[in-house]
């Protein structure tokens, strides 16, 4: 097990710059999740840690040792690919033992290690099968087994669950978390599924456009997103945004109504801001009251447990997440309160959080 340090790392493919000035320290035993939209460079960063991509600038250290020039095979890390990358011509057992065989581990030790890993993942009955004869979920397990069998310094996961159906994904997610609790190995996990990110991570690294936008523990990113990108990316359904200007301790959207600012927030008079409010933090009130807004219900999406209500407010589509199924009817009016303490305010120009 080991720590991983990434120091002002950058990456270009030819003239295209993909990662810029990435700094990140991953502690021994930590589970770090890289999230971000497609194409933001998550896989590239992971593959650089693995040694599959050259490092254009900066330095990566594993356990204090600079690995920029170290071949993947000498980095002692394991990686689970999105495609699983199982060796089609080898049985499950041979797939799992390949790394140990390359290291010339004694036969009995290999057998024991494979048995232990298979036991942890429920693969015992499948050991003699070829990957072709496995279901998607079973293949995924084999890929995990291949990674854990040799106790590497760190685990790298590149969207390991994205080829599974929703239910299986949930199950494997819990299993990965359990495995990490049991093994405690340093892990870097790439996903664009934010539920996976929230549930698995000790720390989330949110990336966008080749730049780290925010690093923090999952609830931190949820409670205090550092900028508009993170605010919009973390949370589902996504945060609502309303543009306006600051005037006298409140934000005035262009229609003249007022949204009170959170206490203690300093904003210049007339500053252009974007106010963010999570759908689950919009309060529905029974009747119009001071400070409340009235809006017409556009669309109702029941999800079972809760209901997503879309209303038109200030010319925007505002989403409200409520547990009260009977709260809204399409076409009917809805009275809502935007509570100052639950608002996120961002400078519209810099997109950075205020306060």
């Amino acid at each position, binding site marked *: 097990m080991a720590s991983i340090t990434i120091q002002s790392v950058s990456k270009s493919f030819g003239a295209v710059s993909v990662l810029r000035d990435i700094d990140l320290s991953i502690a021994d035993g930590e589970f770090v999740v890289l999230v971000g939209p497609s194409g933001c460079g998550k896989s590239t960063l992971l593959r650089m840690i*693995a*040694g*599959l991509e050259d490092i254009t600038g900066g330095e990566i250290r594993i356990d204090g040792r600079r690995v920029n020039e170290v*071949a*993947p*095979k000498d*980095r002692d*890390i*394991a*990686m689970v*690919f999105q*495609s699983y*990358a199982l*060796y*089609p*011509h080898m049985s499950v057992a041979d797939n799992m033992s*390949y*790394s140990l065989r*390359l*290291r010339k581990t004694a036969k009995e030790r290999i057998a024991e290690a494979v048995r232990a890993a298979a036991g942890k993942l429920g693969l015992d009955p499948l050991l003699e099968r070829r990957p072709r004869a496995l279901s998607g979920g079973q293949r995924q397990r084999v890929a995990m087994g*291949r990674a854990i069998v040799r106790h590497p310094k760190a685990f790298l996961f590149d969207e390991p669950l994205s080829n599974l159906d929703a239910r299986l994904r949930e199950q494997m997610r819990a299993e990965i978390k359990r495995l990490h609790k049991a093994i405690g190995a340093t892990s870097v996990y790439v996903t664009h599924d934010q539920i996976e990110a929230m549930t698995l991570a000790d720390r989330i690294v949110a990336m966008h456009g080749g730049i780290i936008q925010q690093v923090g523990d999952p609830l931190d990113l949820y409670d205090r997103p550092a900028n508009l990108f993170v605010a919009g990316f973390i949370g589902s359904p996504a945060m609502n945004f309303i543009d306006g200007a600051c005037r006298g301790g409140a934000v005035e959207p262009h229609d003249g109504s007022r949204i009170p600012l959170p206490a203690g927030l300093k904003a210049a008079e007339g500053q252009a801001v974007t106010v963010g409010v999570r759908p689950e933090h919009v309060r529905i009130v029974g009747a119009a009251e001071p400070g409340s807004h009235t809006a017409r219900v556009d669309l109702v999406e029941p999800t079972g447990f809760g209901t997503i209500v879309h209303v038109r407010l200030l010319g925007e589509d505002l989403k409200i997440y409520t547990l009260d199924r009977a709260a809204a009817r399409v076409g009917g009016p809805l009275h809502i309160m935007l509570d100052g303490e639950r608002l996120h305010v961002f400078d519209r120009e810099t997109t950075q959080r205020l306060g």
Partner: protein
Amino acid sequence: MTRKRLLLTVLHRLAVLAYVAFALFPLFWLLKVSVTPTSLLYTEGIRMWPSRASIEHYVFVLTHSSFPTFFLNSTIVSASTAVIVTLVASLAGYAMSRFIFRGKYWIIGLLLLTQMFPLVMLIAPMFKMLSPLGLTNSLSGLIVVYVAFNVPFATFLMQSFFDGIPKDLEEAAMIDGATRFTAFRQIILPLTLPGIAATLGFVFTAAWSELLFALMLISDNRATTFPVGLLSFVSKFSVDFGQMMAAGVLALIPACLFFLLIQRYLVQGLTAGAVKG
């Protein structure tokens, strides 16, 4: 509806049958003439099977002609060419498929260029080049020439097979602790066996039936290959069809054996190659 379907199926089968008959008939005729005694060859005209079959031509070809030497020469040349070309083409095809390197597109262009000329144009310069090197009249010379002419196409063929194998596999192997070459040998090569079989088969048959260079570069009977040897049955005044056909039938044997050995991989291989183009 169903009657129309039935009709279409019947038509389709008939068309296939006609095609197969057309393709196989010359082979049948080869066999037929080879077992027809010389005395009956012209007298019986175009009967489908002679009234009396005999193996006299085979006996003659095997015992009284240089055919066994030709046969051995051809086997040596074709097998060596096939093995060398496949080896070189596998490595080159892998590099083409996986690496980006300086001059890659120039190399591909040059390889393509070699495929564009009719070979006849190159015979004189080839002879000029090989003769001072002592490579005319020798099997090694022939192997060198065949290798050179088969490598480009075989490389493209192998590249398309490697392109069909996900990069993830060797990356996984490299992370598992393999060098790139170990990953190539233990993970990628076994998965390319169909492609290798197809390439081997393709090059083997190409070399086995090559006439032009064999005719031009070899004049010594001891280094003659079988297609050239067949011509020796043509004399100034007559053609000994019976013996020629018997030799032809015998020459089919190694090619058939070879394809029998690799056919398990071949069907898979040729279709894989076809799809990837």
